[in-house]
């Protein structure tokens, strides 16, 4: 089985017996069907990405990898006595498979430590020389306890079960899962660290078998009267596990302010999650010990570790507060508000309103889990974190949480994260936070999509102005000339400039760098519903493909497959997709590019296809997806905006040309402004509706 086929499975935690099948034989069978190769996991992308990760994320991953590596090295070394003295032959056979799993895990995390964390060239060092993971809290605070219990495994059946409980239920069932979840969370963006994501997913699946075995063995032991032994092992073990989660022997990187708060918040949540898992597991097995006893043991060990940390290092652990109170979810109001740099205006009300009512961190993290980030090869990390916070209207702690969670960024020269503006825009839309600037802008710019069709097809006049940046980057610009005549409109250049075909075949107007192209356009929309079933099917298939509109760089828009893998689409990629399909089916199809006019103008692409009635129809499905976005946002913000017309958004793709589209002779993926060499150039386009009739 190719390792790339492995999916992140957390199955196998079921303890439901199957009649007539030994659960241990069943586990053996699962092992036979779930192989993977630690040496074949491709770490090239991880290697390239690692140095671009925020330092905080690297530090967190470093700790997680060390703990996982140390744990797997330790359990590999300590499993043999459990195999040798297993009370049942089927258990022994199954445990032999587990030994190979643990070796595979140790090798994988050893490779990761060597090749990614330490930056060494790929080699067989991880195979021949186990990484010692000296930074590990597990190594100092848990491994000795496990080693002692396993060393005594051969003394009696009770001793074996004591060791197995410590090994399978605590090391793997509580600690291992907790740290794997950290690794999975931090490395879950498969485009950033695909090697880590694959490896952790495979390890997770293996561990699910091991834990299932441990639970089965514990339940068998309970039935044989070893309840007290197992309970004692479990209580002792989870106390050591809580200590490892705190990590008193490892100095924390000093942080102050919001980053310190955010780290404490994360650690508190992880600790609480691990503790809760320990309680639930005990309950599932039927361990003869109350939840209260377990909770008290866990909390006491946690508190002791926090005190030991302070005594050892001379300052408080980030979990010190957790030791003083019941682990509760922090409330946002306790987060210090972010002060905008340079906010010299009397804007106290503004700063306060940027926080009041803001979705909490958990909401943003849940949203981010559904947001696809722009792939590295297309991303441009140049948006400072301060600006990203201002656009998202969130405190810096929230952005830091997103970054730690895997939102891509690069480090700026000042050591601060830089983000891709598209990512910030898209996560804002996904979150639907009404004060986020992209949400405000989108709702404002796309409000017209709620209008009735008759308002979208009437004749409309617009003042047009298009200009390059100042200071100029090139001496002249060639602008695709508006061409609304095809649809019954007209365009009049204010200076009677004459357009001509440029090298790419597009009719363009040449303007000096400091000039502004000015003109007036009259456009007419029209609505001529599509007839051919093939065209309808092409549109329906696209609209049913669970894609959503997102802001995406033009380079990526030109790769339909790549953008759709992200769950996104744009006017360019939908045009390409449908044009390709309909052309293959024998339709006469042309693609077009122009502007979608309004207060916040956008370049826009669509297709036109000759229908079975001989008429050329506009097919512009992205309007449907924009409308879906608008509707979702309006619902989220509780807006009273009424969708006055077009009860079914799909009608927007049914042969509708809206009176905001200003066409040109450019095809769907052309640049609307180029320089003399044909390179695409930034221009500022403005369109204002006017009632002055110029016809």
């Amino acid at each position, binding site marked *: 089985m190719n390792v790339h086929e492995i999916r992140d499975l957390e199955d196998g935690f079921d303890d439901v017996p199957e009649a007539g099948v030994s659960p241990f034989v069943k586990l053996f069978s699962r092992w036979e069907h779930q192989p993977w190769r630690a040496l074949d996991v491709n770490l090239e992308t991880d290697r390239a990405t690692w140095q671009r990760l925020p330092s905080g994320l690297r530090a967190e991953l470093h700790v997680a990898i060390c703990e996982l590596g140390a744990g797997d090295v330790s359990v590999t070394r300590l499993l043999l006595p459990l195999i040798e003295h297993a009370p049942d032959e089927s258990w022994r056979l199954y445990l032999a498979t587990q030994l190979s799993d643990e070796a595979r895990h140790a090798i994988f995390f050893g490779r990761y430590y060597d090749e990614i964390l330490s930056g060494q060239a790929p080699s067989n060092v991880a195979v021949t020389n186990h990484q010692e993971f000296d930074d590990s809290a597990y190594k100092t605070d848990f491994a000795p306890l496990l080693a002692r219990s396993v060393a005594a495994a051969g003394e009696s059946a009770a001793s074996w079960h004591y060791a197995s409980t410590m090994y399978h239920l605590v090391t793997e069932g509580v600690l291992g899962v907790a740290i794997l979840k950290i690794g999975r969370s931090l490395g879950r963006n498969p485009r950033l660290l695909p090697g880590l994501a694959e490896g952790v997913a495979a390890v997770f699946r293996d561990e699910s078998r091991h834990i299932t075995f441990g639970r089965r063995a514990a339940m068998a032991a309970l039935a044989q009267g070893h309840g007290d032994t197992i309970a004692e092992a479990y209580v002792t073990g989870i106390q050591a596990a809580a200590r490892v989660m705190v990590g008193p022997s490892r100095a924390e990187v000093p942080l102050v302010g919001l980053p310190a708060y955010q780290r404490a918040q994360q650690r508190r949540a992880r600790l609480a999650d691990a503790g809760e898992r320990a309680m639930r597991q005990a309950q599932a097995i039927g361990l003869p010990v109350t939840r209260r006893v377990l909770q008290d043991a866990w909390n006491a060990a946690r508190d002791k570790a926090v005190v030991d940390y302070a005594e050892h290092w001379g300052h408080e652990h980030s979990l010190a507060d957790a030791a003083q109170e019941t682990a509760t979810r922090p409330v946002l109001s306790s987060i210090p508000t972010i002060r*905008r740099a340079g906010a*010299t205006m009397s804007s106290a*009300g*503004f700063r306060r309103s940027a926080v009041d009512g803001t979705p909490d961190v958990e909401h943003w993290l849940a949203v981010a889990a559904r947001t696809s980030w722009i792939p590295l090869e297309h991303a441009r990390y140049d948006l400072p974190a301060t*600006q990203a916070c201002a656009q998202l209207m969130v405190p810096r702690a929230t952005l830091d949480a997103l970054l730690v969670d895997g939102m891509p960024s690069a480090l700026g020269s000042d050591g601060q994260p830089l983000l891709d503006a598209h990512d910030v825009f898209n996560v804002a839309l996904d979150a639907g936070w009404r004060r986020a*600037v992209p949400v*405000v802008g989108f709702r404002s710019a796309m409000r017209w999509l709620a209008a009735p069709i008759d308002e979208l097809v009437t004749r409309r006049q617009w003042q047009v102005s298009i200009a390059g940046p100042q200071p100029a980057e090139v001496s002249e610009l060639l602008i695709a000339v508006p061409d609304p005549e095809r649809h019954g409109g007209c365009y009049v250049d204010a200076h009677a400039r004459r357009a001509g075909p440029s090298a790419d075949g597009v009719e363009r107007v040449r303007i000096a760098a400091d000039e502004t192209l000015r003109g007036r356009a009259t456009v007419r929309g029209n609505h001529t519903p599509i007839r051919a079933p093939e065209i309808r099917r092409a549109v329906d298939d696209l609209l049913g493909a669970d894609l959503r509109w997102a802001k995406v760089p033009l380079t990526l828009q030109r790769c339909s497959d790549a953008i759709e893998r992200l769950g996104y689409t744009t006017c360019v990629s939908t045009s390409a997709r449908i044009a390709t399909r309909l052309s293959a089916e024998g339709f006469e199809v042309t693609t077009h590019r122009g502007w979608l006019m309004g207060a916040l103008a956008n370049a826009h692409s669509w297709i036109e296809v000759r229908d079975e009635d001989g008429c050329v129809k506009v097919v512009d499905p992205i309007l449907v997806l924009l409308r879906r976005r608008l509707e979702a946002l309006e619902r989220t913000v509780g807006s009273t905006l009424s969708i006055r017309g077009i009860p079914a958004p799909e009608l927007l793709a049914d042969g509708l040309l809206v009176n905001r589209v200003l066409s040109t002779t450019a095809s769907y993926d052309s640049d609307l402004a180029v320089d003399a060499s044909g390179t695409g150039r930034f221009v*500022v386009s403005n369109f*204002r509706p006017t009632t002055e009739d110029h016809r």
Partner: protein
Amino acid sequence: MTPYESQLQGRLAPASEEAVEAVLACIAAIRPDSTPPAITEDLIRARTIDSIGFVELLFVLEERSGRAVDLEATGAERLHTVSGLAEQFFGTRGGDDA
């Protein structure tokens, strides 16, 4: 003398100067590292702000002035300059009434 005094001197009534200062302060707040713009400079063409920054600026100005602007009816281009923003949000046109 403020950084903008040479631009403002002799061109604006006192009330307009306040309006322009308020707009400039808002720009400085959202783009603290940007070079202070000339009052008639197109903020987007000059890349002082991008389209999202423009929305952000309008957002801040709305909160600051308590006045909302119909972007489409006004025409975004009119709002691309400090003077245009001062006029729309604070009721005076920089330079016109000096």
